């Protein structure tokens, strides 16, 4: 595989899970706003059906785990359908980001300078019907063959590019992946072409879960296997047992999944709780229904009426405010802190943002409190002051409270911003304002969803104070993303950008977002073009302003990435986080989003899955008499 770029993983409209900590609306903010607590609500009992509604599933690969790259799917996979060699407890907060063995008997210790990883698979773990047999190391190896098959369009296959021989397999030069060996049915060994200390995290992604060759081999186009996904978890797609897998031509879609209307999950009769841990999966409901309801307002009306339990959509701020203001309904609101950062992206190759003083002035003038309010207030997100969310650092003590551009009330400081702007080449009058023509009508891409639209006047007002005026194009999310990620469009400023983690190592932020090798003509996530060289700029049709050298953090990323997981690695990433904020300044970060969930009154236990940034489906419970 030689994939170097990727689309951003599509997240729920907003993210996460603290518990029920709501009093009056004001108390909501005081109690929930400032922390990423982890208390689960309730204990629950076995039975019932957990009902979820959504305006759209939004799956990126028709629910085929090889390519599926959406938050909602990952939450369902991890909690209910797919067990990977290593996984998470699927709880809120920092503990929810810590790896634990799942299919594997233990977390292995790598040898060969982090290049050889050996796993032993637990005994007694079986696939759900219609396969029914024991899961073997070959099933895990086969998942990687699917990842490396170009026709199946694995959307995050780049994470596995360091597995020896995977490129040769992808190009057809080899029929096996030489870097994956299975000495016996319970042992699998990965040989990597270079040290990859965070390899365990990469194995926690759903595409790395076991896949039965006898079924999946029948699907040779992207997404095909999603309709007949064979479960290794506590639930399976309804209708699985009736699918005839004796021949490819006999396979029909499982009746419980229709991408346009429903996903119904029932208990997997082959699931053996003894091979799992209740810390990871309590699996209390008898089933789950995920149903499309295109009327968002109706979804939340139904939740408030107790007709459904949860939604893949985030409730609008107006509805949350209504519920929070109602003493009898406040307990329905649940929230948590996501591992995602929302930011304004500045293009280092475009005037006036090629000047670090302008970029720092933007940070100093930005009304972050206003942007927070535009997103629904403190309940919907905490102010972000640096790149990586604190919950992704096992020990965030050395970066907690770090804010290099602190201003009173986080509302921006005209004096501090103008003092910074005063040092800029774009302030020829030395009046603290961006006077040059490059500062006027700066081409800006914004997003036209309701909350993102609310951000536009806040940004426009703030930048106006330092003399920057904007020529704003507000586009639908997909168009805005495509426009900004096409380098030749030379977008100087992009509002309402967001990035969510793939796994809980800061490399998933720094590598795609700031490494020069991730710069690509289209689908480019390094929107600020950090590390852009003159040669690469020429190739991409970008004209770097004369006399400007764009900073690079490639060496620093490589240095951190080479350190084994642990406190030293964390410290390295934290130092890089601070370096990027102070010496590169590609962004004005402003929000770490909360994931708000409005839950039905029948929900008796709920937690937040920090690893997937969704409801922790493996830990929910509903009143046992609810059959959906």
């Amino acid at each position, binding site marked *: 595989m030689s994939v170097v770029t990727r689309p951003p993983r599509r997240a729920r409209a907003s993210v996460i899970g603290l518990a029920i900590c709501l009093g009056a*609306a*004001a108390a909501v*903010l005081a109690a929930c706003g400032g922390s990423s607590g982890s208390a689960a609500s309730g204990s629950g009992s076995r039975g019932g059906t957990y009902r979820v509604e959504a305006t759209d599933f939004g799956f990126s690969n028709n629910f085929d785990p090889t390519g599926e790259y959406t938050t909602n799917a990952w939450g369902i996979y991890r909690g209910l359908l797919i067990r990977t060699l290593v996984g998470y407890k699927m709880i809120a907060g920092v503990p929810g980001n810590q790896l634990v063995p799942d299919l594997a008997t233990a977390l292995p210790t790598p040898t060969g300078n982090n290049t050889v990883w050996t796993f032993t698979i637990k005994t007694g773990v079986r696939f759900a019907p219609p396969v029914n047999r024991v899961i073997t190391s070959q099933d895990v190896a086969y998942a990687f063959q699917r990842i490396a098959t170009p026709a199946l369009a694995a959307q995050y296959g780049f994470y596995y590019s360091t597995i020896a021989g995977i490129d040769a397999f992808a190009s057809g030069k080899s029929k096996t992946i030489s870097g994956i060996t299975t000495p016996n049915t319970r042992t699998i060994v990965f040989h990597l072409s270079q040290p990859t200390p965070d390899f365990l995290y990469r194995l926690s992604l759903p595409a790395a879960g076991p896949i039965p060759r006898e079924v999946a081999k029948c699907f040779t186009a992207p997404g095909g296997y999603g309709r007949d996904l064979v479960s290794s978890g506590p639930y399976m797609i309804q209708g699985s047992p009736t699918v005839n897998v004796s021949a490819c031509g006999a396979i029909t879609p499982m009746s419980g999944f229709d991408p346009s209307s429903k996903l119904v999950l029932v208990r997997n009769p082959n699931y053996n709780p003894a091979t799992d841990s209740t810390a990871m999966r309590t699996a209390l409901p008898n089933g789950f229904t995920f149903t499309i309801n295109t009327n968002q*307002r109706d979804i939340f009306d139904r939740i408030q009426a107790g007709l459904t339990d949860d939604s893949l959509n985030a409730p*609008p*701020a*107006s509805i*949350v*405010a*209504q519920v*929070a203001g109602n003493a009898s309904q406040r307990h329905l609101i649940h929230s948590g802190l996501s591992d995602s950062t929302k930011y304004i992206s500045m293009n280092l190759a475009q005037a006036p943002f090629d000047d670090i003083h302008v970029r720092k002035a933007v940070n100093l003038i930005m009304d972050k409190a*206003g942007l927070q*309010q*535009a*997103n*629904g*207030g*403190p*309940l*919907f997100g905490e102010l972000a002051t640096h790149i990586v969310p604190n919950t992704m650092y096992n020990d965030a003590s050395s970066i907690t409270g770090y804010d290099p551009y602190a201003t009173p009330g986080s509302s921006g400081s005209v004096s501090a911003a103008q003092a910074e702007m005063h040092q800029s080449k774009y302030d020829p009058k030395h009046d603290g304002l961006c006077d040059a023509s490059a500062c006027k009508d700066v*081409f800006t891409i914004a997003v*036209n969803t*309701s909350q993102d*639209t*609310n951000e*536009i*006047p*806040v940004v*426009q*007002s703030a930048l106006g104070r330092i003399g920057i005026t904007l*020529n*704003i*194009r*507000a*586009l*639908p999310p997909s*168009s805005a993303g495509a*426009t900004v990620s*096409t380098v030749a*469009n*030379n977008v100087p400023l992009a509002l309402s950008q967001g990035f969510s983690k793939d796994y809980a190592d800061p490399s998933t932020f720094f590598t795609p977002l700031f490494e020069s090798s991730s710069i690509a003509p289209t689908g480019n996530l390094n929107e600020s073009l950090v590390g852009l060289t003159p040669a690469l700029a020429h190739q991409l049709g970008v004209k770097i302003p004369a006399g400007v050298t764009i900073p690079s953090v490639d060496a620093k990323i490589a240095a951190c990435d080479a350190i084994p997981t642990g406190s030293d690695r964390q410290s390295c990433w934290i130092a890089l986080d601070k370096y990027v904020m102070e010496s590169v300044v590609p962004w004005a970060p402003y929000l770490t989003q909360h994931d708000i969930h409005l839950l039905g009154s029948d929900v008796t236990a709920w937690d937040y899955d920090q690893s997937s940034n969704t409801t922790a489906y493996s830990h929910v419970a509903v009143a046992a008499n609810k059959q959906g």
Partner: protein
Amino acid sequence: MSVDVSILESAQPPALGTGRSPAALMWLRFRVNRAAYVSLIFLVVLTVAAIAAPLIAHLAGHGPNDLYRTSMLDSFGNPKGPTLHFWFGADASGRDVFVRVIYGARVSLIVGVVATGIAATIGVVFGLIAGFRGGGLDTLLSRTSDVVLALPVLLFAIGLSSACSNTAQGCVGGAVTPGLNLVIVIIVIFAWPAMFRIVRAATLSLRESTFVEAGRAVGMTGRSIMFREVLPNLISPVVVYAALMIPESILFEAYLSFLGLGVPGTTPSWGGMLEQASQYYTTAWWLMVFPGVFLLATILAFNLVADGVRDAFDPKATK
């Protein structure tokens, strides 16, 4: 855009012999129509308010893009309703809805008048040429108008808006950039065929008239006959239909802005305000009611004025 064929009836020679000028007669007839007269007064007041929007904003103490998030938004970022200082309440960014409604009138009136003016001019010129010259030119222009009328308006608008939004330069070499001018371009493209058809049909009828024959007999050129003999006789249907096109253009701008394809959110427009209101209609009624009422009243006023103009031009009118 629909064509009201009945107005063709008004393409008749004016009534004779009252001793007043045709304009004075028309004005007298128009004033008798109270609904039209009151509507005209409303439109004049609205136009004055739109022109004086900066002064009104100054008197109100709030600019159209001034943010009052601490005083006019709650802790969830939801807007607060009308107060003594914010007569129409605030929007979701904490901006004064009253001031933005007044500023929004500017967009509506500019779009209504400019887009209609351009579309009507194109329609009249093409209609005259096609109707008077006939032949291949008529076929070309008629089929072109048929093609335009067959285009899906909203899909075309969405496509054009998307294509012109990716770069700072817009499209067509920078001639078309998203915003007000793109809205006007889209409206013109889809509005001229209706006027074209009306004028062409009337011209086809008039070119067989005796006064046209007389013009030819005395050696007038075709162009002179078209513009000096035929065109004056088309003023009545053209003015009436143009008056009907204005509210349609305003409404179309509102549609486009409602879909996020119109003017940028920082430029207040009624359609854009209604779009934002749709997110808050259960909790912030004022966001929908005030721009909605102004849009409704303006459309109604233009329609009533158009009716009044049609009646005033009609020599057979009894009122």
